[in-house]
């Protein structure tokens, strides 16, 4: 397989609710180790697109290839296997409230991967260590800050050994002073070579790290390209307007 073969490719993804088309014929592909960032106004389809990729939302139309293999019968065991390879991080963390940080990371390994308890625990501790939360492993979600919860959720996703991770506005629900601890973890995961598609308003972070920015509006991909181009020389007026606004708000350099 050539290096240029995309690890994930989606084509003509479409989703409608009633007569509102929230995703229109979206296509993208991403190579191993790349970070692609979805930007665009709220309600533009970023979340829908990410959730269609792992079938949390069933797309009406569209095809997906992972590692060159098309995901055809997206149900039952094939679906569960596929989802294990696609890690997901949510805006609201979505930790399991009844489990400690350690068990949040461990449960997927034991219940989904069928790993035995001790091996799973070792792995979970290692992942928590990686996000800097080893000392907090016995805390429950209610006892953790938002930033810590999001880092636990990243550890939970990493533990499953995904081939690609989808991050749906991972810092949008956080207090400003907690954002950087999560971004630092994402940066570290990225430099370990993880392939990621992320939606965010943290434009400074995106312009520093992204291989490509994808501007999504009204459910369709308006424009895509290197950060510098999209942020400062976008072709469409709408993308230019959005980018200048968001750059003003969130800063042009990563802080």
């Amino acid at each position, binding site marked *: 397989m050539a290096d240029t073969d995309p690890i994930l490719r989606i084509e003509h993804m479409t989703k409608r609710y009633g007569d509102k088309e929230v995703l229109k014929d979206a296509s993208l592909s991403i190579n191993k180790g790349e970070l692609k960032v979805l930007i665009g106004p709220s309600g533009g389809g970023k979340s829908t697109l990410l959730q269609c990729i792992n079938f949390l939302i069933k797309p009406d139309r569209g095809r997906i290839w992972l590692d060159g293999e098309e995901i055809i019968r997206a149900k*039952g065991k094939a679906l569960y296997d596929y989802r*294990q390879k696609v890690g997901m991080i949510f805006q609201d*963390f979505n930790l399991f409230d*009844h489990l400690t940080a350690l068990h949040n990371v461990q449960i*997927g390994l034991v219940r989904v991967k069928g790993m035995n308890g001790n091996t799973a625990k070792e792995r979970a501790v290692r992942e928590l260590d990686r996000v800097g939360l080893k000392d907090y492993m016995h805390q429950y979600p209610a*006892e953790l800050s938002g930033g810590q919860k999001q880092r636990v959720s990243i550890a939970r996703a990493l533990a*499953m050994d995904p081939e690609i991770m989808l991050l749906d506005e991972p810092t949008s629900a956080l207090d400003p002073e907690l954002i950087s601890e999560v971004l630092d973890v994402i940066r570290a995961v990225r430099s370990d070579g993880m392939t990621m598609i992320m939606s965010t308003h943290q434009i400074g972070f995106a312009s520093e790290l992204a291989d490509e920015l994808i501007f999504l509006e009204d459910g369709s991909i308006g424009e895509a390209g290197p950060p510098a181009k999209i942020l400062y020389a976008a072709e469409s007026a709408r993308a230019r307007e959005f980018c200048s606004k968001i750059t003003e708000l969130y800063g042009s350099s990563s802080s």
Partner: protein
Amino acid sequence: MRELFFLQPDILSALARGLVVSVQLIIPSAFFGVIIGVSVGALRVYGNPVVKTVANGYVLVFRGFPLVVQLFIWYFGLPYIGIYLTPFVAAVIGFSLCSGAYQSEYVRGAFLSVKTGQMLAAQALGFSRIKMVLFVTLPQAFRRALPGCGNEIIYLIKYSSLAYMITCIELTGEGKIIASDSFRYTETFMVIGAVYLVLTSAAAWLLRRVEDRLHLPGFEQYS
């Protein structure tokens, strides 16, 4: 002698016998009631439309029919189709199914209170629907349903007194016999009532212990 009426050996042993039967009725009924309640509650939330309709129908009927009528059907009605149940078995079946219908309502509410995001997270990790329910939502729903379910068990302790209507002579049944033999209705039923009070208090204490035992940060019940 009048004051010592309840200390007479035969009276005392009749009450003790009744108490034993009551407890024998209550424990399995409470157990099966919770099992049915959790299962039906889960099906009412996560089942497909057909399963949901059947489960809702069950709850509608078993909450809607008076319990005495249900007991009569189990005990006096089933022989018409060739099924003969002992009074005890008929009572346990009647209580379990009725209690389960009520329990399922508490459990259903508790399942609905689990944040949907957690289900998305479980699915995103590769959980099947059934594993998601078993390992993610049920442990949370059970904790949230516990106060309501405990309440239902307290009710069950009291409505177990209906068993004597189908000739399963438990505490109330023995009391009725003692009272009619002695014409001491007031004293007898005061004593019977007090015994139920002890039973419900013990159950309430026990349930409290279970709640404390299962308590986790973030699952505070404000009372």
